């Protein structure tokens, strides 16, 4: 008898005699009412200690380079499918190097590659959507989209289309039903990494980035 069969069998036997309280599903959704998603999103991110920028269309590349330089970037990790023309050239002109973020499949060489990536000062990524209620970014891994880019570097710069901010997580799952099926990793990120494990003192940047900067694309 397999372990799964035995456990499921016990679950079924218990359910046959179970006396679980079964309250009815309430009609009220309990969802917050959010009218201006973009404004609520911006306030929520700021309250979490992140920053939001809204550059003009022709200033986007310049702003990205400026924020990366501000974070001390020599090396950076970056998604290489970002819809920003001229990005690679701008980094090269600024003397910044985009690291190869592809990890080897085999165990050998993985640690070395990770150690190299650990030196990146900035991670530059896109974002699927923003969530107004929580100030969260929704990021999805995939081809040319490294998940370590939003985790390893001390500064994370995320590009988000300003038309893609939705009120709640529920609305994200409704609008993007294949989000999780389509990616091995989907991260909802609300502000910079933080801890309060030592005497409840809030400290930013414990394992993930200390800085979270969101650039809203026109």
């Amino acid at each position, binding site marked *: 008898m397999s372990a799964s069969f035995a*456990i499921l069998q016990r679950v079924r036997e218990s359910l046959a005699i179970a006396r679980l309280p079964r309250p009815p599903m309430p009609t*009220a959704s309990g969802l917050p009412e959010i009218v201006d998603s973009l404004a609520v999103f911006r306030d929520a991110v700021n309250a979490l200690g992140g920053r939001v920028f809204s550059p003009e269309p022709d200033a986007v590349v310049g702003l990205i380079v400026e924020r990366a330089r501000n974070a001390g970037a020599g090396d950076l990790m970056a998604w290489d499918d970002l819809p920003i023309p001229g990005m690679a050239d701008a980094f090269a002109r600024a003397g910044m190097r985009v690291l190869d973020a592809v990890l080897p499949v085999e*165990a050998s060489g993985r*640690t070395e590659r990770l150690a190299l990536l650990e030196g990146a000062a900035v991670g530059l990524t896109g974002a699927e959507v923003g*969530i107004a209620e929580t100030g969260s970014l929704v990021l999805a891994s995939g081809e040319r989209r490294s998940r370590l880019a939003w985790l390893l570097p001390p500064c994370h710069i995320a590009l988000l289309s300003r038309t893609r901010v939705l009120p709640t997580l529920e609305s994200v799952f409704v609008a993007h039903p294949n989000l999780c099926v389509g990616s*091995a990793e*989907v991260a909802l990120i609300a502000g910079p990494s933080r801890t309060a494990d030592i*005497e409840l003192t809030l400290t930013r940047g414990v394992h993930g980035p200390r800085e979270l900067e969101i650039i809203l694309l026109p």
Partner: protein
Amino acid sequence: MSGSPGLPDFGQRVAKALADGQLRTALNRATGRFLRLRAEGLASLPDPDASRDRARAIRAETLASLDEHLEQFADRVAEVGGHVHWAADAAGATAIVLNIAQRCGAKLVVKSKSMISEEVHLNLALERAGIRVVESDLGEYIIQLARETPSHIIAPAIHKTKEQVGELFHELLGVPYTDDPKEMTRVARAALRTVYLEADLGVSGVNFGVAENGTIAIVTNEGNASLATSAPRVHVAMMGIERIVPTLADLAVMLRVLARSATGQKASVYTDLITGPRRPGDPDGPEELHIVLLDNGRSRVLGGPSAEVLYCIRCGACLNACPVYREIGGHAYGSVYTGPIGAVLTPALEGIDKWSDLPQASSLCGACREVCPVRIDLPRLLLEGRRQAAEAGRTPLWSRLLLRAYRHVATRPWLFRLALRGSRLLTRAIARDGWLHRLPPPLSAWTATRDFPAFAERSFSMAWRAGRRR
């Protein structure tokens, strides 16, 4: 890790905790702060009770057909390339993880917080096999260095002062002493970075498994689960069989009340939704994903009188609200799960014989039920635990005799009135300023740490009768 508490052990642990002034200060500060943050967090919702009712209804519906949801979950995980392992008990779970670790030649394991791994004592099993295990949650890292166990579900090192952590880091990590939490956090970040990069295996817990698509959701504020499940070549996720939600829409409801109930946040900083291992073309992520589904008594609890305890989503709010937990802290319970939920869950999973004292660690005030995001009737479950303890003959003789005597008196009104009059005369005769400061044994157990009030001049029933006449 777990004690084997008979009543004297439990009493000794409680006495030790109550005598520790530093612990009680830390507990009071932390639990008070968590409660305030929780209240503020829920107040940010237009109808917090509707969200909690919804969360409760989802838990109830899920468990009522748990077998179907589990099967669907396991099928979906397999479809996206993950491996599902079923563990009947703690030994089964550790054997599965050890087997995976040895097969991939693991020497170093990085862990993000997992109560299941504590429940099955995974670290011990791995270390016995010569594998180094490092906890990555800052609180867990601290208590691992101190060779202690978690004292709170979401704040494992709640009992340690910053000076104690500073000493610990100075001694064990060889860094200059500091009591600045920011500096200590920086030290821990640097130390743990090396671990992430070199670990062969990442072990995590699971907050929820989503049946409809095989996604597992893991929440942290530090980002440690994200790194522990992304950098190492193999990821093992451990979850109890009850931690299922049917759909992503249900998950959204649960996450909304989980973060607010735990820390008052609208959302935890990192919510990782993991659906299978690294895919072809992905630049990173683990090559293998293993999900360990642990039963360890849950399927049996489901059919018993304490089944409602399985609704729990491990937010820790009942710990913060409990007047007993707030005084004695987590370690006094002697079990992995502490506070009101631990006092119900531990005996339910491991048997009342070993844990008959835990359901007594409650005043039955109901504060736990008031703050529970899924409205578990914890006082009822605590009473159920006491009933089982009494049935198993685990009630001390003096308590049984006393209760029998009380029943004899209380069911005879003339005798009750007589006893009342006697007590009133006696206590008022020996009281000073209306209080009894010292009583002979066994009543001295009460007066050793507090006074006892003398009986009132007029009993409630006397006042009641007088009021009715007017």
